């Protein structure tokens, strides 16, 4: 039973994530006054990549790429999506989710740096440094929500927001939502926080040495990651949803907000990202925390 559910959720998350990526490309193109590819382009890309030849440098690279995808798919199993969770007994334990996610990051980092290309490793070093920047405000926000709800279960967070838009955390704790949305921008690696991929500086960073099937797995991982991270924001701030359609719609809105910023901003240097996050979102999150506990 749990296996069937897991397969359904994984397939759903990848499909939705790829759809988001496709629509996102079109959306960004229109903001840039280009025509843009069709919205099903991402599906074509993945199928194409899996059918091409690929290279690998050693077994650690293969293992790392697999671990990257496994970490993200495994985390989705713990997140309540429209009232369903693959692992029901955990009810979306937020601390386990935050830590399980890092299996994916670690796997991807290990796989690409095993390739021996310095561009990939520079990208990872940047990503990890920025992670220290955006995780701290995000965690402070999560901690303040845990304080309000007296529970660290996402299921309880969602339950406490039921009953109309006025009960959503975005309305009750707007400052927390702002920090969450900004952190999401950095988690997704969208501009202005995309120093780790930076195509013009370090040749797309982590992706530089991926080809064919490996790149396809990386693509699938990114799609699942979009689904996972937007789902977290929806569960934390937008009250979850009762049906899967509404849930995906809310995720899409969250994703579009991130994309809109992505389309118009230039890139920050990554140490400036850390400093910026430790200044503004950190201050906002501390204010939110003080408002909650006082």
């Amino acid at each position: 039973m749990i296996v069937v559910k897991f397969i359904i959720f994984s397939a759903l998350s990848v499909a939705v994530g790829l759809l988001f990526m496709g629509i996102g490309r079109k959306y960004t193109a229109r903001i840039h006054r280009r025509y843009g590819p069709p919205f099903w382009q991402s599906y074509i890309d993945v199928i194409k990549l899996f059918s091409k030849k690929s290279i690998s440098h050693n077994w650690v690279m293969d293992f790392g790429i697999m671990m990257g995808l496994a970490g993200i798919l495994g985390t989705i199993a713990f997140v309540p999506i429209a009232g369903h969770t693959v692992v029901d007994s955990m009810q979306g334990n937020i601390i386990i989710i935050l830590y399980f996610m890092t299996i994916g990051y670690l796997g991807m980092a290990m796989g690409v740096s095993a390739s021996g290309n310095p561009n990939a490793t520079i990208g990872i070093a940047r990503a990890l440094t920025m992670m220290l920047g955006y995780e701290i405000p995000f965690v402070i926000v999560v901690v303040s929500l845990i304080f309000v709800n007296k529970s660290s279960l996402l299921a309880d967070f969602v339950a406490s927001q039921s009953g109309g838009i006025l009960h959503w955390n975005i309305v009750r704790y707007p400052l927390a939502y702002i920090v969450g949305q900004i952190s999401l921008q950095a988690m997704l690696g969208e501009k202005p926080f995309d120093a780790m991929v930076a195509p013009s500086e370090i040749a797309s960073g982590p992706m530089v040495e991926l080809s064919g099937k490996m790149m396809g797995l990386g693509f699938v991982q990114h799609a699942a990651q979009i689904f996972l991270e937007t789902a977290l924001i929806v569960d934390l701030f937008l009250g979850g949803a009762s049906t899967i359609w509404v849930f995906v719609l809310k995720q899409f809105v969250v994703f579009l907000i991130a994309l809109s910023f992505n389309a118009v901003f230039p890139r920050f240097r990554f140490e400036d990202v850390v400093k910026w996050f430790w200044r503004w979102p950190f201050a906002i999150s501390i204010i939110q925390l003080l408002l909650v506990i006082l």
Partner: protein
Amino acid sequence: MILTSLTITVVVAFVAAVIGTKPKWLRWTIFSALLAYLSWVLWSLYGRWDYAESYRLFSLGGVKFSLNFAITKLGWFFAFFTTLINFVISIFSIRKNLAERDELGICALWILLAGANMAIFLAADWITLFIAWEVMTWTSYFIITPGWKNSFRAANYYFLLSMLGAYAMLVAIWWLWAIPSVHTFNIAQSISGLANYWSVSPTSVVIIAILFLLGFFSKSSVFPFHPWPSEAHAEAPDDFSPYLSGIMIKYGLYGVVLFVVPLFLAIVRSGGAHTINGVPVISYVLAWFGAITAVIGTILAIMENDMKRLAAWSTVANIGYAATAIFILTPLGLTGGIFHIVNHAVFKSMIFVALAAVKFRTHERQMHRLGGLATKMPITFLTFLLGIIAAAGIPPMNGYASKWLIYQALLAAKFPFLTTMIFIASTGAFMYLFRALHSIFLGQLPERLSGVREVPFIMQIPMYLGMLAMILMGVFPGYILKPIGGIVAALGLEPVKVTTTKMFSVLSVVDSLAVYNMFALSFAAAFVLYLIGKARRKVAPLDTYTAGQNPADFGVTTEMLHFAYKFYAPFSKMFKNIRLNYKVYYDDIAKNTQVFSEWFSGIFKFSTMGATIWFVGAIVIIIIAGWLG
């Protein structure tokens, strides 16, 4: 039985020393066998909580000195796990020391140290504890510095801080004896006596607690004593570092759980203390010391380029987590803290064993001079990988269970800022752990290391055992948490509810087996996706994307393509104006002391005149004092 095994230990140490320089393997095999025997003795003592031994030594001025041993739940737990882990590490030492020159003294002293380790945990009175503590200090000092120049300097930090702590403890022990209503060396009685003394003089109780804490904190390298591990753990013999970092640094926290925690709990129960969310103010301040230790250790680890020093800073950070949780004084906090101590002992000794294996083959410690060893040393790589996954607190390895409990403790006790500090340290841990993984095992293999092979099989045995332990302790935390529950119950608190695989807290429940199953399932799914599509082709390490240039044309070597030196340079720059490593201050103190002592000794050395003046001056002072007295 305890004294018998300690006597056997001393005899074996003597035998190991007189065997001579030739049969090195025999000496270290005897060491392993002794540790196996000690583990068995401790295992057979499990459950005999009324077991005690007492030996009258002598009495001096009305004070009766005696050796007392007892099996308490806390002491047994620590004694058993430390001896067992020491046994696993010693298997590594058998092969590693075949090529060493100075191993004779190391082996004999380490055997004594293993005995002192057991005596510290099983001591029932302060005198026995202090004797064992001193034996532990000087044996470990000479193991860290078997006549090597760098390690001598490093060991002096360790030794001086330990001395400072030990003397503070000695003063506190005599103070306990001097208080009429306490007047005992027995540990349990002195706690209850001191707690009753709170109503008479809170100040002296706090000062006694602080004197003990000086001893415990300097041993466990809690802020502001945090610099010594990065010196001593790094310069110690490679096979001793796992023991030093995994086990010895925990004595201080053991002391905290042994003495300070029950004292604070008793004071809280008597209702005479100011509390914040149910935690006494002093304990809350001490929890902040732990949190600061965690953050400072993490940031210094991120800036470090030496792999053993990096691991040592990581140890400091982990001690910080455990200390913070323990000082929260709730069942969750104590369980999480003690569990983290055990988990850290396992994964950090495995990390250090993997580093020792790397150094055994490459003789390098600077991380940027290594690289690409994963394919050459796969078992060492896997050990290190599982170790860092555990250290980062990622499920399903053992580190996550205790970190989860620590978070639950801090959140349940409503300390948002402490939670944030621990989270900062924990996120920073990914940075330095990945950096070590990359710089040593991933990336490009330097040409001069192309002949490196995996370590011999005997050295791999501890790695297999360690990997197994890390996974099993993560999936079935209940087996370790049940004895910890006994310790918490012995402190008079309600133990945390656990089953073999599930942990319950006020805020949520976690099912380790479900987490592990999901891990396996998602891995299987990724593997299936990996099998789809065309087979991959293997290419040479140097055959990477270089924007169309041929690396050979520019004379690019593998070493140049290995991005490892100054890995987090922009990040380090952010902290360049903040002094986090207090080594500088300690060096200043050392320098000033030296200047002063040289001036002082100069008076005697070079001038008879000066010496005469001092001598006459001293005589005059004594005479005047005699008149006045």
